[in-house]
């Protein structure tokens, strides 16, 4: 019995000694990022009265700092947290960021949307399937898995704006970069950068921030929440195959068009994997 007990103690001591990784500073990595042209879509479900959502905004800023133009962020204001608190424009949280597409995907007020009940902040990284909803702490990991992969498609957007009738239009070329037989869908969105409005932030003593810089805010889905199918999986596409689509959309009265951005992305209709994304300012 005694021998058995000694063996047990040795096993316990061994267990204690091997199961901890105590780290010392510096904690940050000094990675060199090799980019091969694939852009990554970040759909950030957010809301102006969501006090934890600025943490997700900071994560996106960090991703942009690390990956630059490879990140295509979209802030989708939805759920209860997007509801204006008042219609009085002198009071906090009066602005209505909501959109039809945002309501459909994330839900409006207490009604759930396509993605069911969402606990903000939450997002989708380069995949539109519901099971890929991720908390912002894991977005960097998801991005890192894809950051150096090659794009199967390239997207070119030619934007235009007609001030007379406030019409935003674009011509989009989707070019095959790696041959495949996917069923392909194209989604086109309009975003607006730098909407200076109220935002709740739990990390601050004064939690209600006036004039918060709301970046890449979804304004409209040009061709619906999930876009349109542009190629069936019965059609193989080879390198340099090109599909061209044209769209137009009337700008909202309160939009600052100079701050507007057109986002286009293509995804595998069956797996919901986003294969390539692109964004361009309307005035570029």
């Amino acid at each position: 019995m005694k021998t058995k007990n000694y063996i047990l103690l040795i096993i316990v001591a061994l267990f204690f000694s091997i199961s901890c990784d105590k780290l010392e500073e510096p904690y940050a990595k000094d990675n060199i990022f090799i980019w091969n042209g694939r852009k990554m879509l970040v759909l950030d479900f957010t809301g102006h009265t969501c006090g934890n959502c600025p943490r997700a905004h900071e994560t996106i800023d960090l991703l942009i700092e690390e990956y630059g133009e490879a990140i295509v962020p979209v802030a989708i204001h939805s759920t209860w947290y997007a509801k204006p608190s008042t219609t009085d424009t002198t009071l906090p949280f009066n602005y209505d960021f909501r959109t039809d597409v945002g309501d459909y995907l994330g839900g409006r007020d207490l009604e759930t949307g396509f993605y069911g009940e969402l606990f903000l902040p939450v997002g989708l990284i380069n995949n539109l399937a519901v099971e890929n909803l991720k908390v912002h702490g894991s977005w960097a990991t998801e991005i890192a898995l894809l950051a150096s992969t090659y794009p199967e498609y390239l997207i070119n957007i030619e934007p235009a704006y007609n001030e007379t009738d406030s019409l935003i239009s674009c011509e989009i070329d989707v070019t095959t970069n790696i041959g495949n037989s996917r069923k392909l869908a194209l989604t086109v969105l309009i975003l607006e950068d730098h909407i200076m409005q109220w935002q709740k932030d739990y990390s601050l003593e004064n939690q209600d921030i006036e004039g918060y810089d709301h970046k890449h805010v979804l304004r409209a889905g040009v061709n619906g929440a999930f876009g349109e199918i542009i190629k069936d999986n019965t059609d193989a596409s080879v390198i340099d195959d090109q599909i061209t689509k044209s769209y137009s959309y009337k700008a909202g009265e309160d939009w600052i068009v100079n701050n507007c951005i057109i986002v286009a992305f293509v995804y595998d209709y069956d797996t919901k994997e986003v294969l390539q994304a692109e964004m361009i300012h309307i005035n570029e």
Partner: protein
Amino acid sequence: MRKVITLILGLTSLGVFSLYSQQNNGGQVSGNFQSDVQYYIEDPEIGAVAVDEFVLVNSWANFAYSQGNFSAGFRYEGYMNSLMGYPNQGGINDGIGIPVKWAMFTNDNLEITVGNYYEQFGNGLIFRSYEEKTLGVDNAMMGFRVKYTIAPGVYLKGVIGKQRQYWDYGPGLVRGIDGEIQFNDLIKKFSESNFRFSLGGSFVSKYHQEDHPFYFLPNNVGASAGRINLAYKGININSEYAYKINDPSADNGNIYKPGQALLINTTYSTKGLGIVLGTKWVDNMSFRSDRNASLTDLNINLMPEISKNHTYTLPAFYPYASQPNGEWGAKANVFYKIPKKSLLGGKYGTTISLYYSRVHDIDRSPVNDTTPLMAAGTLGYQTNFFSIGDEMFYQDMTIEISKKWNKKFYTSMSYVKLFYNYEVLRGQTGHENVDANIGIFDMTYKIKRGVAIRTEFQGLFTQQDEGNWGLGLIELTIPRWFFTVFDNWNYGNLDPDERPHYLNFSFGFVNGGNRIQLTYGKQREGVMCVGGVCRNVPASNGIALSISSTF
């Protein structure tokens, strides 16, 4: 009555449980079943929505077989689809299957469990695997557990496995050991002593592959805890301290500060008097087997709650939610029974319960002059051991007086004063903290054997949130049946157009191990918490059917 039949449970070559029954040969089968069915009706007045399916159903059943030193079992679960309010982001919880299956045997001093199991080390500061169906929480382990009794009163437990995450398992591995020495059982001459003493210790390590592009993260995170229990006659002191090494995660914003926690509970009881004193201090102790998990997913530990779980409806509007990132709390509870045949005690005695609890944030300061508080990729903050911050999270003062007046009449009166830090505890914005005063009067009159009528009158008075509420309930119990009607009225809402009634009718049938209840009514939007763990409860209107059975 418990049926005794024979059943053989075996693992087929595919690893799937199968079962078939035989005539009695000494084995025993037990089980239970529960199904909750809800039909949803849209009701814009209270913000209740209907669902595409019209009806949602949560159901589960446990089956266990035991014979001699061997036992085994499994659990069916079906969420078709999940009731609203249960964790189900993106429909992840919807489905039908047998997610829990286990087998266990003992051989001399060794007990071995394979498959799914639940376990707790000490008070759960570093390891607690459990399920709570009312919350939709189930972090069952899948792996094996070994418990070895070294000597009388001395045991060592080892666990290893992955944690259940809805219909799958989390990516992390959890390994742990726990040992305890009960000195009164170990040393014979102390076995009859009034002084009882035990020591315990545990260590848990999780393995989750480092995969962050910006930060070096620990693949292995270890946590250890030591505990002591002292008892002398009616006094019992239980204390546990836990320490966790750097564990940057989504919960703590990727900071590297180690975590620690201290729990002390003291009880004293003698005839007619009981006293409970407790305190808890928690600093950065969120511990999950997936560093990116959120909500109630994949928690390895569970900080015991320091606040009271109110069972009456109105004080339960504002329940406390544990804050694993940092909290200090203290509680005191005194029960006193005024003796029978005294002036205040009357013929049957009178019971008085006084309860007080208070919870604050801990005190944090930046690690240096150039690093912001809680900055990711740093230690995050510094704090002194057992520091108490200025921000109050919760306070509860409750007095309850219960009295049996005669053989037929019983009353219970309560007064509750609550402070509720709405933004921290509810995670929602745009709300003032709530100061609420609540009164409850509960009367039961026994008409004859098996027949009783009970009434409840509750009032909640506050200037914040939704203002004042009143609740009236009447319940008739007759043999095997009960009938309940109550109305919960938000009569004092600051907006006169938002003063709905939440009327409920229910009746039920109870016979042996079977219970069936049918309810029609409305439910207020809010949260419910068990043990400091919470889930949202959406507003609803509709018909609910609950069936449960045990054998």
